[in-house]
């Protein structure tokens, strides 16, 4: 803790951007940091790093950032664990934040452990709940054992804590137009001081494809579809709902869908508002990846399929009949 003028320690929020676009989970983290700062009474400092084309400052200020730090350098076009760790660690030593919060994205889950090791600080990874005690200690809840249990964990001492938040679990603050936010452009060194990994290229596999872990609605298909060609039904329903397409492990193992579509234990963990499981029986492997969805719809011809135990709404029936009808009804609703 800083002495003297009793300035409370801030919370630092790393807001990830890729290709000039802020990730929504950064705004979610900012929202949660603002809620926590009611206890800590410190600033909420947003940090954006990259080769920054767009202007993020207004969006960040409107979502609760009281200070904004920008580290802008062409050398930061691609993600670099080493350079980002050095930049964030330098800022952390200067600001002495209670916590460094970021989204549990591919980047966040990579950066946070490295940063925590560099700072010898506590790491709270992939949290679904986060509260602050009076001394600034965080109490975090994180799913373990593939979601079968949750661990409530706490840093031993109120040391600096590095936290990643599961996307789509926390809500951003309602946007409130804010003027007069303090913006600081940092001068950062992008010289490698030790051997480091370099991203040669960032490839989008399918242009315009919705990413599962960021989607608010997901339609998934399983073995009940009987063949890769029938995924057309899933894609049409997904298009009507504006949803991302997921798949069970069975159909990924069959080679019907790429591994990047797999939801479950050896695939992705998702927390959408709506998850529609079509022809998926609900093996524990799959449930581990989607059981935190808010509303679950199951369509399956086997009334004893385990997925119905989890489903908010279920239809026992032939998906080849039900799914196209559902697509039509959704289209009607959206048109109406």
């Amino acid at each position, binding site marked *: 803790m800083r002495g003297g003028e009793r300035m409370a320690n801030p919370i630092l929020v790393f807001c990830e951007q890729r290709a000039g676009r802020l990730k929504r989970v950064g705004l979610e983290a900012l929202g949660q940091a603002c809620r926590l700062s009611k206890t800590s009474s410190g600033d909420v400092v947003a940090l954006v790093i990259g080769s920054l084309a767009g202007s993020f400052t207004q969006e960040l200020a409107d979502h609760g950032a009281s200070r904004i730090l920008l580290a802008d350098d062409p050398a930061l076009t691609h993600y670099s664990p080493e350079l980002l760790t050095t930049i964030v660690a330098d800022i952390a030593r200067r600001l002495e934040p209670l916590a460094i919060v970021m989204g549990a994205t591919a980047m966040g*889950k990579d950066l946070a452990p*490295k940063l925590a090791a560099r700072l010898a600080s506590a790491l709270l990874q992939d949290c679904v709940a986060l509260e602050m005690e009076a001394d600034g200690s965080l109490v975090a809840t994180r799913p373990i*054992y593939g979601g079968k249990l*949750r*661990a409530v964990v706490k840093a*031993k001492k109120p040391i600096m804590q590095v936290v990643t938040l599961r996307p789509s679990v926390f809500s951003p603050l309602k946007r409130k137009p804010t003027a007069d936010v303090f913006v600081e452009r940092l001068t950062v060194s992008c010289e490698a001081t030790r051997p480091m990994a370099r991203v040669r290229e960032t490839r989008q596999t*399918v242009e315009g494809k919705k990413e599962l872990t960021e989607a608010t*609605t997901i339609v998934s298909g399983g073995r009940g579809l009987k063949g890769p060609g029938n995924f057309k039904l899933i894609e049409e329903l997904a298009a009507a709902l504006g949803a991302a397409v997921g798949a069970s492990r069975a159909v990924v193992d069959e080679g019907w869908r790429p591994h990047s579509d797999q939801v479950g234990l050896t695939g992705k963990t998702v927390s959408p508002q709506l998850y529609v499981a079509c022809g998926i029986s609900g093996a524990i492997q799959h449930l581990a990846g989607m059981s935190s969805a808010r509303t679950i719809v199951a369509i399956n011809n086997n009334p004893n399929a385990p997925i119905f135990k989890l489903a908010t*709404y279920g239809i026992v029936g032939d998906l080849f009949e*039900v799914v196209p009808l559902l697509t039509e009804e959704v289209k009607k609703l959206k048109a109406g």
Partner: protein
Amino acid sequence: MKLIVCIKQVPATESKLVLTRNGTDIERAGLNFVMNPYDEFAVEEALRIKERLGAEDVTALSLRPHAAQKPEEALRTCLAMGADKAILLSDPAFEGGDSYTTALVLAAALRCLPFDLLLFGKQAVDDDGGAVGIQVAELLGLPHVAVVNKLEVDTQSRCIVAHRQIEGGVEVVEAPLPSLITCQKGLNEPRYPSLPGIMKAKQKPLEIWNRDRIGLEPTAIGVAGAKVNVVRLESPPARPAGRIISGDAVAAVQELVRLLHEEAKVI
């Protein structure tokens, strides 16, 4: 070229988990333990590199996280798959730590061993943290590439080119050796140990290293050194009972859309 694979032994996925009386851990008695599924990709990749490039040897390394666990069994599986030797880090002082103390112990052991490439699974399916491999790299000052689903090793220029899965795409990453990767599904198809492999594994060396062997202060590691404490474990919140919508398909779908729109308010 020397390769070291770091593996963890975890409860099998289908295990029914029961909490200990104080609620901060699971009961290990009676559980079936297996090699962490992602670590199998790491072992397989190391063996393939050895077979392809004629690497000198593959060492499997593990740490006993709890007195009731026998990671020797998972290490024997590595040996049966084709690893040349195994080392188990075992000391009461190592137990009950967090990702940071685990990384400290592994890093201390790895400082005693020659290697060009370290391979980890992308996460252990018990703690689901996905942090230890990355933290070991940081503590050893090595570059890392995490969540790798494609790997090329160039022994001439002593570097690797790895594809790492990110949202909606891949990052193609180059790193000089020595370095560390964490392995994702899709990297390879792990082999099953063959019967001759299982027989041979019994003759292969499996060393046990304690704290004295790697030299670490007991206060820095295990429960004493952990930065994070488990307050309690709990079941995820129960979901409210669901509803099966009956009737013919047309009526059921109309009712479903109505519920999604009016009750759940998700469309």
